[in-house]
């Protein structure tokens, strides 16, 4: 049996130790200023002022308000939120589909060879990817805030904001899905001289359809939650209602809205899961 002659010195210490200790120290060095900048003082949570305010607010939470006018308003706001999410997703899809189409490398004719126009095509692709990145870099709530200033309060701003932000997100994920499935059929079609749209519809989409649809449905579910959040900055729906109730420190209404929101999220979750299972 060949005995590897490991020297005693090499056995004395673990070679991974230096890296681990170094990484840990680097982590601490980065942690300290982060704690300072975020003004992280958890002991303040337990000072009398904060606790009293919390207790007062939480006391008002129960029972949830059940006044009939309020319930009617609640129902309308819920429908508004749902409509905002659906319309926003539709807009996002309209925006994302062409951008993803341009950004997908698998649909590039000039890359076969490479043929003529490789650089120009690459620039076009990179530009559309850049546009997608810009659209999704800004959270939808920020878009909503800006658009509320431009268009006034109400769901219109929310729909546009969702359309823009989720358009970027959908576009990026669509192009990633299209590129990660088997691109052979599409490439074969392109090599046979078909147009890019045909290659997409006959080559890529059939294989990727289930995953594309599944992700879109999942994003719709996220859009429902995002619509509520955007309401906080004035884009209508449940969020705006909740913002108003909390500003008036009406705990009963706030808890009713919160419960409705939780039920809505649960429903959206259920519908999304059922749809995704049906698509599979």
């Amino acid at each position, binding site marked *: 049996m060949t005995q590897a002659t490991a020297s005693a010195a090499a056995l004395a210490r673990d070679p991974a130790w230096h890296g681990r200790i170094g990484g840990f120290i680097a982590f601490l060095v980065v942690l300290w200023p982060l704690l300072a*900048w975020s003004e992280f003082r958890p002991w303040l949570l337990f000072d009398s002022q904060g606790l009293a305010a919390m207790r007062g607010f939480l006391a008002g939470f129960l029972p949830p308000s059940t006044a009939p006018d309020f319930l009617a308003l609640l129902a309308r706001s819920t429908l508004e939120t749902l409509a905002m999410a659906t319309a926003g997703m539709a807009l996002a899809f309209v925006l994302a589909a062409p951008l993803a189409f341009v950004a997908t490398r698998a649909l590039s004719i000039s890359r076969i060879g490479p043929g003529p126009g490789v650089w120009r095509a690459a620039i076009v692709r990179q530009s559309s990817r850049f546009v997608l990145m810009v659209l999704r870099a800004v959270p939808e709530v920020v878009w909503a805030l800006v658009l509320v200033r431009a268009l006034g309060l109400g769901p219109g701003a929310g729909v546009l904001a969702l359309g823009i932000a989720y358009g970027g997100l959908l576009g990026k994920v669509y192009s990633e899905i299209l590129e990660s499935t088997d691109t052979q059929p599409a490439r074969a079609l392109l090599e046979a001289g078909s147009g890019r749209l045909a290659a997409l519809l006959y080559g890529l989409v059939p294989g990727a359809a289930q995953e594309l649809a599944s992700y879109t449905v999942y994003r719709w579910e996220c859009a429902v939650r995002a619509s509520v959040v955007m309401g906080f900055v004035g884009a209508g729906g449940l969020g705006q209602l909740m913002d108003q109730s*909390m500003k008036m420190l009406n705990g009963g209404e706030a808890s009713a809205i919160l419960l409705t929101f939780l039920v809505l999220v649960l429903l959206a979750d259920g519908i999304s899961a059922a749809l995704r299972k049906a698509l599979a």
Partner: protein
Amino acid sequence: MTTPQTTFDGRAWSPCLACLAGALGLLAVVVASFVYLSVSWGDLVSMESMRLMGRFIAEFFPPDLSASFLARTAEASLQTLAVSSIGTLLAALVAMPLALPASGRFGRLSRAASRLLLNVLRSVPELVWATLMVLAAGLGPMAGTLALAVHTAGVLGRLFGETLENLPPTAERALREAGAGPVAAFGYANLPLAAPQWLGYALYRWEMNIRMAAVLGFVGAGGLGQMLYFHLSLFQQAQAMTVLLAMFVLVVGVDAASGWLRQRLTPARG
């Protein structure tokens, strides 16, 4: 088994009736949504409103790049970065012990209870948590940190728990059958298997959280969000643009850092 989409004699695929009905239904729902919102879409795309929009957008340029304002923006950026980082770190620390019962290690009752808790934590949006935390902790970035921590703990707790549940049990079983205690068996079998995935999830959430941390400022949790809200309320578009640019830079930077860390700490096998 998926049915092929084209038949071999070249006929195009004939769509199934259910798919057609589904597509029409979808279209109907979308149209109904637009109609229900009773936003006068016509008005929205009229020449007048386009012109007003155009003017509104033009006021964002050029952004305010004066030295003093840039310094304030930089400070707010650091605060937002800190809020997202500490918030994600706290969330991961809380999620790990919660993931153990959530994966079913301690029985069905604790699994149901911990999953319920995690679901409530993650269903309530960060903005709502932030409003609550502002009440408890006062205005400022700590409210944002706590809100992010609580919400993300729900998300990560569920993801961590699912990872644990999906691990192959052979490694841990072999150790237990060799007489190892539950803690040791977990550390030598499950932890090395789960750790790369956990780290990946946490880093991915950090990327999401940097966007949310910016937004939490809208309700008073400091950072770039608070600055943006402030300047937009005063219709100071030029300053708002600077803040938006800073948000963009921060998001791109964190995405890159997260990607680099993921590559270094969870290298692909083989």
